[in-house]
């Protein structure tokens, strides 16, 4: 890859990152009550509030990553690299800032927070992965339903 290639505009493509992130956001709305309920059963009210913080953290992190990459994809390949790695550093800094801010709060249960972050993040990703693999790599290419083709 030459220097000219790196600064070349990214080929035209739909904003797939944004589509994926907002798909996950929509699923997160369905996913959140179940997680909150389970956290309440397992850790009580502190667990529920910790789970709410964790879900917000995961969803905001995914949406910020998607918006950053969608923007960078319109600029250049170099911008994608810069936004990916710079964005990772910035978003992890934000995660740490949030964790520092809430860790001593009386309504926070750190184990509940940690478990919910992991379960929500991986749960949403695997859920999305199922749809992506069923739709030939991105939602815009999803094959039509059989019934729609027949009619």
């Amino acid at each position, binding site marked *: *890859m030459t220097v000219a*290639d*790196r600064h*070349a505009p*990214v*080929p*035209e*493509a*739909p904003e*797939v*990152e944004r589509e*994926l992130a907002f798909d996950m956001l929509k699923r997160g709305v369905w996913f959140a009550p179940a997680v909150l309920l389970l956290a309440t059963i397992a850790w009580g009210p502190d667990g529920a509030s910790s789970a709410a913080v964790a879900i917000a953290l*995961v969803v905001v*992190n*995914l949406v910020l*990553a*998607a918006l950053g*990459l969608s923007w960078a*994809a319109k600029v250049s*390949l170099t911008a*994608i*690299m810069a936004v*990916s*790695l710079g964005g*990772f*550093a910035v*978003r*992890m800094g934000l*995660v*740490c800032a949030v*964790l520092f801010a809430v*860790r001593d709060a009386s309504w926070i249960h*750190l*184990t509940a*927070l*940690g478990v919910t*972050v*992991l379960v929500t*993040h*991986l749960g949403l*990703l695997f859920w*999305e*992965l199922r749809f*992506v693999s069923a739709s*030939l*790599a*991105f939602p*815009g*290419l999803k094959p039509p339903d059989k019934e729609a083709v027949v009619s």
Partner: protein
Amino acid sequence: MLQLLAQQDPGELEAGLTAVGRGIVYGGAAIGPGIGIGIVVGNAITAMARQPEAAGMVRTTMFLGIAFTEALALFGFVLSFIISG
């Protein structure tokens, strides 16, 4: 060194070791996924430059790759807070 350790309260040593452990967990959680994301994005950019018509598919895979790699970082960061908690 041993005399110095013997003069300390057991609680101080434990607190110090906890801080060291937290630093190791935090550092590992930042470095590993950082390298992983670099590899994912680097290869995705090469793929887009070589085959521009596949950019949509490559970006989808890249975004999911980044998100999966970040799970490790998130887990490490939260774990470091749980250790110190």
